[in-house]
């Protein structure tokens, strides 16, 4: 299972990279969102996908899944969400002010370098 998940994570990273290399701002943000999905799944996979009960003591099982990666991912999801939301509003404001979402046109001031 971990091997399959590693491949899936690789695919997520691949499409994220491809999207981030495009010139449309919205696609770049979609790319970052996919990248964070890939990273979260990678953390979960590397923690081991051995079967066991959910990490709730009420289950009274003999073995539980590792709770630590889950806590880490939860933190990461929230932070990724905050950053994505900020980026989206930033992109929205950039559209409003500059009238373009083409990264090739967003190059700073010419002659100011």
């Amino acid at each position: 299972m971990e091997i399959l998940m590693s491949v899936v994570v690789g695919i997520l990273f691949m499409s994220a990279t491809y999207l981030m290399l495009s010139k449309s701002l919205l696609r770049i943000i979609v790319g970052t969102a996919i990248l964070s999905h890939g990273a979260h799944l990678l953390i979960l996979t590397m923690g081991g996908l051995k079967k066991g009960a959910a990490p709730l003591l009420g289950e009274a099982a003999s073995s539980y899944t590792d709770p630590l990666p889950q806590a880490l991912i939860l933190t990461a999801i929230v932070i990724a969400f905050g950053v994505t939301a900020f980026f989206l509003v930033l992109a929205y404001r950039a559209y409003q002010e500059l009238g373009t979402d083409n990264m090739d046109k967003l190059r700073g001031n010419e002659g100011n370098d």
Partner: protein
Amino acid sequence: MSLLHLAIISPFLLAILVPIAYKLFRQIHTGWFVLPLPILLFSYFISYLSITSDQQSVTESFSWIPALGIDFTAKVDGLGLLFALLITGIGSLVVLYSIYYLDKNKEKLNTFYVYLLLFMGAMLGVVLSDNLIVLYTFWEFTSFSSFLLIGYWYHREKSRYGAQKSMIITVFGGLSMLGGIILLYLMTGTFSISEIIAGSDEIFSHSLFVPALLCFLLGAFTKSAQFPFHIWLPDAMEAPTPVSAYLHSATMVKAGIYLVARMSPVFAEHSLWLWLIAGFGITTLFWGSFSAVKQTDLKAILAFSTVSQLGMIMSLLGIGAAALHFETVEDSYFTVATTAAVFHLINHATFKGSLFMVAGIVDHETGTRDIRKLGGLMNFMPITFTLAIIGTFSMAGLPPFNGFLSKEMFFTGMVRVLEMDIFNLDTWGLLFPVFAWVASVFTFIYSMVLVFRTFTGKFQPEQLEKKPHEAPFGMLISPIILASLVIIIGFFPNIISNTLISPAQAAIMPVEGYKYDTHIYFWHGFTPELFMTLGVITLGVLLFISLPKWRRVYDLFPEKLALNRFYDSGLSGIQRGAYRFTKWYMNGSIRNYLVYIFTFFIITLLSVLFMKDAFKFDASNVSAIRFSEIVLALVIGVGSITILFVKSRLTSIILLGAVGYTVALFFVIFRAPDLALTQLVIETISVALFLLCFYHLPQIKDEERMPFKATNAVISIGVGLVVTLIAFSAYSNKSPNSIAQYYIENTYEKAAGKNMVNVILVDFRGFDTMFEITVLAIAALGIFGMIKLRLGGGKKNENK
């Protein structure tokens, strides 16, 4: 801190007081406040003569940074004292001269004397320091104060150019010398020159010995304007003439000579030392004298002449080092070269100082230094003319002046090279006397040009800005004193041989308990040297008379090969190259930078993975696959790839949502209920935000499919592959131990909770959560600020 230390730093202390004196006493020329110090120092250093004449030395130590072995150790021995006397003696005369040369109403005298005092103190520090780091500190101080003095008239572009050039070249050499100092420290473990000399036999075969030697020589050659680093010196002539006389003839340019002489006991055993110093010296000698003849500016002639004479002293030091290769230094036939080097060092300081002052007087009284405009000044300025005759004849090596004696000894040293049977000198050695002789002919020619083109010939009053007349007496005092020294040393050379020359020589070639006999004879008999001098005079006179006829020779020399051109184009080439390179890789496109970053990521990680043999694939530890998992994996894989190919952005947002919900489903089947919950909620909000953003777009007219780019594809596949391979290897190398067991056991026992993930988030690792809340708060505030704050006027494209 002893009196000696105080003497070294006293110029620095006085430099602090100079601006105050300048402000308070505007009626009195500031130079008068400065003048007593060098005179006082000169008399103080004279008192050491009795000690050094007996080959003794005085060492005073003052702790500076003892933890690093850096102590301000001052040592006065023959060599250091010789230089200290030159610095303070000529320093006094230059200060006196500058009082009459610089106008107290037109010039900023406070800065001038501050810089000059800084230089004087730095130079004293260089020659009297026994610690290499302290020596280096003072060494850079000389570069720095020389830079300030060359750029004294900073409103002139040529001054700034000359100052920058000298700074670049001398600091380049200074830094290389610092490298040499560090290499020596690595070999010996001490910065003290005396201790390094004492242990110099052991480092001879060390692998760092040759690099250290080269580093030191680079420092010495750049400072002393040796070929091909001499190019800064002619441009340094933009400085006021007292500065040229002091720094660029008598003292700073001899710092490199001092360094070579000082380090001779360490390095001279090596044949490279002899060859490089003698070779570069003789090349500089020839090139400097050859170039001097074509100059038309008095100070430029003197600058090239300085270059040439420094080359001569340098080559003599190199040849003198050969004496160390023979059994007994005591009776060595070859030490005469070192004696000649020290003797000429003194002579050059006297006559070159006076000649610069003469050039300054001519400039001051006529308004020009161009020899094409000058002529026939003899009748107007008889005293200056006499001084010029004495200086130039000494420089040309004519009797009865001191230059004659040192030139004879120079020829003696060079002729004796023929008899050396070491380092192939018996074959190549012939070049030395030949080059020396030809260079002396050129020296003779430019000396004659200097004096006769200026003071005899046709007087051209229409070319001159002022009506020429004799200089004020005060301006003449210093050159008169120097010229008298030229004559006195010329007639009675032995008054300095035992007091100054042999102690200095003992410092250059220390032999325990031996006193060098440096008696200088006026008349050697009919030796080859005498005939060489006669030949120089005969050919020199002939060539000087016919100079207008063969002057064209210099036009044949292609200007393209000139070293200045090489320096200028090199410097601007570096600037252009750096600009183009930056322009090329910093092109402002985010995509380009991402390409660099991803490419670097792929190359580094893949190469480390396979070069370090870290890749591992081990499927024994993995868990079983269920059908549902395969389906979800397919959905997520296909979904994320489809995003790349859809045309509409709306579709891609929906596909992103699909991927996110599938991730939530994965969390469900991998037994992470909290994660699944959060993921579902957050994915919903995110997709809503994306849609909001999409809705507010100012009419995307041409929605199109992402254009396919092969580089992007290769890079993204590479990134995916690297991540997968690293995941394989990391999982295959997984350490079985996890700290999870602790949380499982203690969640209820110690933290009174049953949901382990939540207990970890708020109890065991609560700090993470606190700052994660901060992140959310900052994001929320940031979004609010972005939307509300419209400093740029805003609303340009809103609701189009």
